[in-house]
């Protein structure tokens, strides 16, 4: 399989992740528009059904991820996440040239998804839904947000190592388990910093918000680069250490 085809698969996979996953967060905010959040920690996601809102968003991500892994996993590996790609590269499982191409493709796919979502739903998706962009919630500091993203991505990468990378893993379960794991992480940590777990997933909505509404959230972007990459790399090395005879 050529690097071009693998990169296109990554682009399409990340597009689907951001369109359906981040899109579900934007739709939740649009549905809850006008309702009175019960406390300052509730920005609208949670106004409808409490933690159930996050379960719904988590499931949207889970199903999109499962679909992408089962449909495109054999072509590109379906990383759809620069943190995962970098962790596999850092543990010498992935070539440097492929890593760069994958990350560029993931970023382009995420950006295209955000513009496509705005084109599908209209400007309310940007002005009300923020295209599902992630940011620390009220009362959450920058470092707390990084920590939450790192711990969340740590669990994601640990799961990937255990159910997919490890040759002893039972075949066929990776897509389902990894998708559901992301859904669970989002349910628990979504209301801390958005539970991006993925620099590309945050990049797309940020770019869309900036270009379509002039709304800049870039000051938070390092959270979603440092946290996920640190969490994923630590998980990959730790798994290698623990699983070595």
């Amino acid at each position, binding site marked *: *399989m050529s690097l071009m085809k693998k990169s296109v698969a990554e682009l399409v996979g990340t597009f689907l992740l951001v369109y359906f996953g981040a899109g579900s967060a934007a739709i939740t905010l649009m549905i809850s528009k006008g309702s009175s959040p019960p406390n300052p920690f509730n920005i609208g996601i949670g106004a409808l059904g409490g933690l159930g809102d996050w379960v719904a968003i988590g499931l949207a991500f889970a199903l999109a991820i499962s679909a992408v*892994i089962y449909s495109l996993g*054999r*072509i590109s*590996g*379906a990383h759809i996440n620069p943190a995962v790609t970098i962790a596999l590269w850092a543990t010498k499982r*992935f070539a440097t040239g492929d890593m760069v191409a994958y990350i560029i493709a993931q970023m382009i796919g995420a950006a295209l998804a955000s513009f496509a979502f705005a084109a599908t739903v209209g400007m309310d998706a940007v002005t009300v839904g923020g295209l599902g962009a992630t940011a620390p919630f009220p009362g959450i500091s920058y470092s707390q947000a990084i920590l939450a993203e790192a711990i969340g991505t740590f669990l994601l990468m640990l799961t990937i190592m255990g159910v*997919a990378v490890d040759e002893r893993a039972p075949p066929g379960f990776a897509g389902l388990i990894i998708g559901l794991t992301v859904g669970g992480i989002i349910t628990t940590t979504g209301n801390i910093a958005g539970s991006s777990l993925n620099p590309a997933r945050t990049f797309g909505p940020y770019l869309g918000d900036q270009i379509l509404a002039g709304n800049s959230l870039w000051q938070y972007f390092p959270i979603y680069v440092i946290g996920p990459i640190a969490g994923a790399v630590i998980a990959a090395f730790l798994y290698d250490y623990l699983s070595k005879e």
Partner: protein
Amino acid sequence: MKCYLCAKEGKDRDAVAICIVCGMGVCMDHAIREEVAVWEGGYPFPAKKLKRTVPRILCKPCYSAYHEG
């Protein structure tokens, strides 16, 4: 073991192979041996087609069913 397909035609020929799908004993005339591609990998690594292949023996009815869908 005798060839099942020959037996159906009223002939009596020894089987030289067994169809891996239906288990039918088949003679050389009714056995189809082909090389099947082997793929390695998959999520989170792209699957790779290996240079080596594995042989597979099918009877004619199973071969036809596979290839005609």
